[in-house]
C-alpha cells in the first residue's frame, strides 16, 4: 500500500517534468530546423581567432557549401591556407586537398574534439546542427521569450561535451547562448550567437558567433559575410573527391 502510494506520488511529481522535457525536445527539433531549414547553402565566413597566451587575434576566411550532411569548404585566407579544400561526408570522414601537394587525403577520425585549424571550434561545431539527434532535454525552463534547456548526450552518442545548457530565443527558435559543461559540471566553453536574420521559411542565420574556451583563455569568432545563399540547387557532384581535386 505504502509502495503504491509512493509510486503514485512519484508519478504525480514526475509528470510535469516529463511533460516539460517533452516540450524541450520539441523546441530542440525546432532549433535544428531553424538553423538548417534549407536544401543547400553557401556561406562565406570571416574568422577571428585568439590563441592562448596571445593578444592579437588571427584572421581566416572560408566559404562553405552544405547539402544534407555533406559540406564542401574552401579556404580563402590566410595565404598559407588559400586553396585548401575540405570535403566532409560525415563528422568523422573528411577528404582534404592540399594544393601544395596536389593530392587528396582521406582522413577518418575517431576523435570528436580535435580542434579545427587552430581554432577553439571542433569539427562537430562546424557540422550542420543535429542537437535533437544527439541530445535529450533533461531540464526545461521558460521565462518570457527565453527558454533554457539542459541537454545531455543520448546513450551511445559520442560528442566532445556531453552536457550543455542552451538558451533559446523562442520568438525565432534559435540558440543565443550555449554553455558546454565539463565532466565535473563547470562551464568550460561558452558559445554565443547574436544578430540573427531569418527568412520567410524560418531559416535563421546568426550575425556573429563567438566560442570562448574558458580554461585556455582562447576564443574564435565567426561572422558570415554577404549572408547565406540558400537553395541554389547545388549539385551532388560538388560533394565528390573529383570536385575536391579539380576545384570548382
Amino acid at each position, binding site marked *: 500500500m505504502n509502495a503504491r502510494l509512493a509510486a503514485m506520488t512519484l508519478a504525480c511529481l514526475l509528470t510535469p517534468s516529463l511533460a516539460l522535457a517533452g516540450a524541450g525536445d520539441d523546441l530542440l527539433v525546432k532549433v535544428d530546423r531553424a538553423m538548417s531549414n534549407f536544401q543547400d547553402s553557401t556561406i562565406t565566413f570571416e574568422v577571428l581567432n585568439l590563441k592562448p597566451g596571445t593578444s592579437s587575434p588571427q584572421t581566416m576566411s572560408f566559404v562553405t557549401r552544405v547539402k544534407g550532411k555533406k559540406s564542401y569548404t574552401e579556404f580563402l585566407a590566410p595565404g598559407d591556407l588559400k586553396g585548401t579544400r575540405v570535403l566532409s561526408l560525415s563528422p568523422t570522414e573528411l577528404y582534404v586537398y592540399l594544393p601544395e601537394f596536389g593530392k587528396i587525403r582521406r582522413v*577518418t577520425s575517431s576523435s570528436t574534439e580535435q580542434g579545427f585549424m587552430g581554432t577553439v571550434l571542433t569539427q562537430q561545431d562546424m557540422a550542420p546542427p543535429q542537437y535533437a539527434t544527439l541530445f535529450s532535454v533533461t531540464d526545461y525552463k521558460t521565462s518570457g521569450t527565453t527558454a533554457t534547456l539542459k541537454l545531455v548526450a543520448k546513450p551511445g552518442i559520442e560528442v566532445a561535451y556531453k552536457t550543455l545548457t542552451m538558451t533559446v530565443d523562442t520568438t525565432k527558435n534559435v540558440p543565443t547562448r550555449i554553455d558546454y559543461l565539463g565532466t565535473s559540471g563547470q562551464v568550460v566553453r561558452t558559445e554565443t550567437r547574436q544578430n540573427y536574420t531569418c527568412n520567410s521559411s524560418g531559416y535563421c542565420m546568426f550575425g556573429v558567433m563567438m566560442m570562448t574556451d574558458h*580554461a585556455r583563455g582562447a576564443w574564435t569568432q565567426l561572422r558570415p559575410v554577404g549572408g547565406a545563399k540558400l537553395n541554389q540547387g547545388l549539385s551532388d557532384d560538388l560533394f565528390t573527391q573529383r570536385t575536391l581535386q579539380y576545384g570548382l
Partner: protein
Amino acid sequence: MLETYARWLVQRPVAWAVVVATVFFGAVAGWLSLGVEQDDDVLAFLPRSNPDIVAFYEINEAFGSTDVALVGVAPRGGSVFDANFLGRLDQATQDLREVEGIDHVLSLSNVADFESNPSGGIVQGNLVPSPVEGTDLDALRTKVMSRAHVVGNLVSSDAGAVVIYAWLGPGATPRQVVPKIRETLEPKFDGDEVVWGGGPFISDWIFSTTQADMAALTPWSAVVILVIGLLAFRDLPATLLGLVATGLAIAGARALMVVTGTPFNVVLSSMPVILFATGSAYAIHMLSKYGGHAARLGAGPEAVVATLVGTTRNVVAAGLTTVAGLWSMLLMDIAPMRDFGLFTGIGVALALLLSLTFVPAVMALFPRPAAPSTHGWITRATAALAMAAREQRRPAILGILAVCVLGVGLVLKVDARMELSAFFGDDAPPARSERFLQDRFGGSQFLQVRVRGDLTQPGALREVARAADTFATLPHVSSVQGVHLPMELIHEAMVGSRRLPDQAPAAASLFKFLDSDPAVSRLVKDDRTEALLVLRLDSAKAEDLEASLDAVEAWVAHEATTSYTPIARTQDPAAFDAAFAGQLAARLRAAAERTGATLPGDLEARLTSFLAAPAAPADAERLREDLGRWLASPENLVEIAPDRLPAVRDAVVALPEDAADEAIAAAVAGALGELPASMRVQDLLFSLGSVRADFLRDARAAAATPGLMAVLGLPADHALAATVARKLTERDAPTMPVAGEGEGAQTLAWTVSGQPVLYRGLSRSVTANQFSSLGSSLVLVLIIMSVLLRSVWSGLLSVMPTVATIVVVYGAMGWMGVHLDIGTSMIASIIVGAGVDYAVHLLAAWEASPDEPITAAVRRAVEDTAHAIWTNAGMVGAGFVVLTLGDAKPLINVGALTSAAMVVAALATFAILPVFANKRRYNAETILPASSGDPR
C-alpha cells in the same frame, strides 16, 4: 646633547607620550602587516639584466614552456595497460583540462595518433581509445609501445608508469594551480604511486615548506631568545620589553612592505627570525647597561639617563653597521635579495630607534631593580682568553694567521652553485619525484635551444632536425623534442611519407594542421619565426647539467648553421651531398644512441662516398605495393574494377621513372581498356601525378637502404634500417641548406636557455653579488667605525674580527662542501652587520689609565661587555639554530652557519682585538670614574 635628550625623554608626560605613540604605531603596523602579499615566483630571483635571463623570459613568454607540472603515476597493478587504470587516467586527464589556470594537458589518454586506414587514407584519433572497454589491451600495448615519441615521454619503457603533463596558462601561478591539480588527481589515483614534479610543484613545495617552517619555528625561535634573555637578565619584564620592541620593529618593516607593495617571498620569510636575533641586540645592550647604572645610581630615571648617555653612541654605531651590512644588498641584481636587505635594514633601524625611545621610556616609567654585573663564569673564561691572547701576542698572532691562511685556502673551494637539490633533502617529495621521473622517464630537467629564422623554409627545418639529432647524442640528454618531429608526422599523415616538406608553402600549409595541437605551440611560434628544441636531461646534479650545457653551447657556438643557402643538386652536387650527409649522420647517430648500434668512426666519409655514387633504381616491389593500395582507395578519383586494378598498377610500375604524362596516360589507358583522352584516364593521370612521384621517392629510398646499411657495416634487417629508409627519402629534396652567406641566404640564430642556464646565471650573479655586497659593506662599516673611532687604523682594527669570522665560516663551508647560493650568500652581510657590533662595544669599553698596562684595558673591556656580547651571540645563535629543525634546506644552511658565525664572531672579537689593540682608549670620552684607576 645626549643628556638633554635623555632628561627630556624620562619626564613622565614625555615617556607616556612615547609609549602611547609606540603602541599606536605598533597597532597600525600590526594591522597593516597582515596584508602583506606572498610571491612564490622563483623567476623573481633572476637578475633581469643578465642576457641569459632576458632570453629565458622571452622564451618563457613566447612558448610558455617552463610552467609545466609533471605528475607521474605508477598503477598499483604494475601495468598501465589495465582497463580500470586507463579509464581513471582518461577521467583524470579530462578533469584536469577543466581546471582553471591550466592551458593544456597531455597524457597517454589524449595523445593524438594516426594510422593507415586499410580502406584508404588515415584514421586519426587518440592513441588510446576512450572509453577503453572492449579494446584488446595486448594489441593496444603493442601499438602504444611502437610509438617512439610516446615511449619514455608519456609511458615508461616498461609500461609500468605514465606521466601527465599540465601546462599552466598565462598568468597562472603555481600557488593557485598546484592545489587544484592535487585535488583533481588524488582521488583518481588513490592506491597508486603518485609523484608530483616539474617547476610548479617544486616552486610550490619550496615556498610552502619555507613558509611552514617559518610559521612553526619563528615562535620557538622567540621562545629560545626569551629563555636566553631571561637567563642573562633574570628579569622577565625587561626581557619581554626587549622582545616587544623587536616585534614592533618587525611589524613596522612588514607594514612598510605593504605600503610600498613589496611582496613577501622565500628569502624575506626569514626576516622575522633575523630581525628578532639582530634587532634585539640594541635593547639588550640598553638593558644590560641599565642594570649596572641602576646598581650605582638606583633604579629610576637617573639610571636611564646614564644608560642613554653612556650607550647611545655605541648602540647607534652598532645599529648603523648592521644597517650598512644589510643595505649593501641593494647593490645586488636579484630583486628579492635587495628587498630583503632593504626591509631587514629598515627593521633594524626601527629596532634601534625603539631601543633609544620606547625602551628607555618604559624603563623610566616602570623602574626595574638593579642588576649588578656578577662576572659569572662566562665572563671569567672570556677574560682569561682575552688576557692570554694579549699576554702571548706572538703565538696568538701566529695562531690567528694560521687559522686565516687555512680558512682562505678553504674559502677558495667554495663554489657558487644553484641547483634544485639545494632546496630540499633526499627524502623530500620533490627529490622522490625527481628520482621517479629520472628512472622511468629520463628526468625532469630541461634545456631549451631557441632557433630564430624562417621556420617555414625546409632548410631551416632540416637544420633544426640536425641540431636535435646531434643534441640527442650529448651527455645526459635523454630525449629531444622539436618542431621537426610533428612536422615529419603531419607530413606522413597528410602526404604519406614521414619526412620534412620540400617547399616553404607546403611547410606553411602543414603548420596550419598543427595549429590545433597545443603541444606544438610549445615548439614553434604562430608566426613560424622561432622554434624551440626541448632537451630532457637525465640528471639534476649541477655538474651533469653543466656538462650538458657546455656541450650544447659548444655545438651552437662552433657547429650550428647560422647562415645557409638552399642549393639544388644540379647547382653543386658535392655541396648538396655533403649537406645531406651531415643531416643523415646526425640522424643515424641519434638512432644509434637509442638502439645501441655501433657506427663506424669515419661515418661522414662513408656517407659522402655513398651519396656520390649513382642511386639504385626504385624498388619495384615497394612501388607496386604502394600503388596498389592507393589505386583501390577512395583517395583515387577513378573507381577501378578489381579485376583491372593489377593491370593498371603493373603498367604504372613498369614505366621508366621519368616517364612523361603521355606515356603514363597511354599505359593507364591500355590497362583500363579505354582511350587515353577519356575522362577516366585523364582523371587518373591528374590524380596520379604527385602520388606516383611520392611513391617513387619512397621506393628509391627503400632500394638504397640495404646498400647504405652495408656501408655502415650493419645487417639489412637492423633496427636502424627503418630510420635510414625514412631519412633517405629526403635525398631527393629539391634543395639542401648549405652553410654560407651570400645572396638569398637565410639566417638562423641560436640561443641556449632553460633552467640549467638560469642556475648558472644565478650562480654567477650570486658570486658577483657576494663580492660587491661584502666589499661595499666592509668599506661602509670601515668608514663608520673610522669616523666613530676617529682613526682609520682603529676602524680597520674593529673590522678584523668580522673579516676573520667570514674567513672561518666560509672556510667551513668550503670544508663541508656547502655551496654558495642565495641563502648562504646572505650570511656575509649578516655577519658584517651583527659581528661588528661586538667590536663596537668592546672598543667602547676599552680604556686604561696612563699608569696602567694595556692588559687593564683588556680586562676592563671584557668584563664590561662579555655578558652583553655573549647574551647577544647566544640569542642570535639560538634564534638561528632553531631554523635547522625545519625541512627547508636553505633555512637549515642559513640557520646553522649564522648560528656558528655569531659564536665565532664573539670569540674572534675577544681573541683578536686584545692582540692588535694598542691604544689606551678608543672612546672619545673617558669611561673611567675620575677617582679610580682600578680596573672594574
